[in-house]
């Protein structure tokens, strides 16, 4: 009789272990998630956010040697000349290569309402990549949470969309210029590259007053947006290595080149 009781007990322990294992598998299966997958619980969303946050943490590879002329053909915002600059990029959520590569498989629904600036940046970019213009609002929200990269990408997306839908107006260029000025005031001098690419020949002097008016208002909106979220506002945090970057630009403009060590977020 005692022997039978022992086997009963063993069977029940086994059963309980199976139930626990099943629960765990079910939970972890929801984590990677896919757009259009079965409705997910808030618990699963939160879990996804947390696990993704740990996965997208910035890691740095050793510096890569690169020709300065070749460097000028890349998006300079995603490249650092010093480890300090790479840290700054991580602080302001400039995404690494693996983050950008992961956008196409990102479960955007699972990140709805995230208060993590980095995840909001990825969600916004993924939405834009899929042709969903709501990504723009998500990126502006990420900007209010402290993602300078999210803010810059939101401004570019807004400019692109206005141009596609309404055609060209001076106002649209003024707004983009003001948004980029906001990014510059918060610390990113590399918006110069965006100005050169998206607003060549912009009448800087003639439009300075309107740009400043817009920029002050956009900064107020950023502050209000952070206050409404109960979060600290984005702060002024100058990006390191400005002088080195300007030297390279002068060198490139003079038609010369040199080999430089660069750091890229992974």
């Amino acid at each position: 009789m005692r022997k039978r009781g022992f086997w009963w007990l063993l069977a029940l322990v086994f059963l309980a272990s199976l139930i626990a294992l099943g629960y765990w598998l079910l939970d972890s299966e929801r984590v990677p998630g896919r757009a259009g997958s079965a409705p997910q619980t808030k618990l699963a969303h939160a879990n996804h956010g947390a696990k993704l946050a740990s996965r997208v943490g910035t890691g740095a590879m050793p510096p890569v040697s690169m020709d300065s002329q070749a460097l000028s053909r890349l998006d300079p915002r995603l490249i650092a000349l010093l480890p300090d600059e790479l840290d700054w990029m991580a602080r302001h959520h400039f995404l690494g290569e693996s983050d950008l590569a992961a956008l196409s498989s990102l479960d955007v629904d699972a990140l709805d309402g995230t208060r993590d600036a980095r995840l909001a940046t990825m969600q916004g970019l993924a939405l834009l990549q899929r042709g969903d213009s709501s990504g723009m609002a998500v990126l502006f929200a990420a900007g209010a949470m402290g993602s300078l990269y999210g803010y810059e990408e939101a401004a570019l997306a807004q400019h692109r969309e206005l141009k596609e839908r309404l055609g060209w107006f001076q106002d649209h260029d003024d707004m983009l210029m003001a948004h980029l000025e906001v990014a510059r005031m918060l610390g990113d001098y590399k918006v110069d590259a965006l100005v050169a690419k998206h607003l060549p020949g912009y009448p800087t002097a003639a439009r300075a007053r309107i740009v400043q008016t817009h920029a002050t208002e956009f900064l107020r909106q950023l502050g209000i947006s952070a206050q409404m979220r109960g979060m600290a506002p984005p702060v002024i945090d100058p990006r390191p290595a400005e002088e080195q970057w300007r030297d390279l630009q002068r060198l490139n403009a003079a038609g010369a080149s040199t080999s430089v060590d660069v750091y890229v977020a992974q």
Partner: protein
Amino acid sequence: MRKQTLLLSAGLLLLLGLAAFLELRPAAPVAVSATDSQPRPPLLARMVAQGGDVLASIFAARFPVRGKVRASEADSNVLLSQDSRRVALSQAELGWLQKHAYPTDAALDALSSVDLAAPEGSLSSEAMTLRGLALLQRGAVPEAIVTLRKAAAQGAIYAYEEAAIAEYRQRVAQSGKADDADDVLRAHLEVAQILGDYKVDYLTATYLPDYRDRNPQRAEAMQRYTSEFMRQLGLGAQALGVTAPGPDPRPGGEQWRDLQRLSAAGESARVDVYVAE
């Protein structure tokens, strides 16, 4: 015996199930809050249910007041005719003034007793502001400007404004009124506005009543100075090892504008003003 075994097994199963549930359930929310270091705002739904102005509730939660608050009445036109940067029309606005180290009347009255021999190493933004103002009062203008800018790097917007005014006065006294000095002051006041203080309008009207920002050259200069002063503020904070300020709009903008509209219509009102004791 068989009954006992069954009961024992069922109990064990329940315990195991409970342990598995507790082990798996709390992980997610805790992990997320670890990535969300910011405090959460009061629930909007709760605020709406409580009634009243939702925005005011958010501001009140964001800018709590330190110390006891005393409310008194004032004439709106009197407030508008003087420097009312340190006046609060709500408790939230008073909390904002405290957060950004706007000195109280009592602290300004006691400036002469500020000990300038004390080391400034670990002074708070409030104490640093008072030290800067005390230096200014005693005529040590360059030192005062440096000290006030250090306070500003820690978030003291009043100190930033006072440093800008002191620098402007000094420049005008030395070299006379010049366009460039006006551009510099205008840009400093724009920075203060960006940081949240819309009440710098009073300073603009007082010191730059005929500033011509419609002139493209002036506007461009002012814009360049503004971006540069923001950068310098950030660099100052980095050098001090503190978090730099960012845009943090002062509450009560709509109330102050209402008073201005009232004044423009030739009327005035009695309004409550709040002071911390």
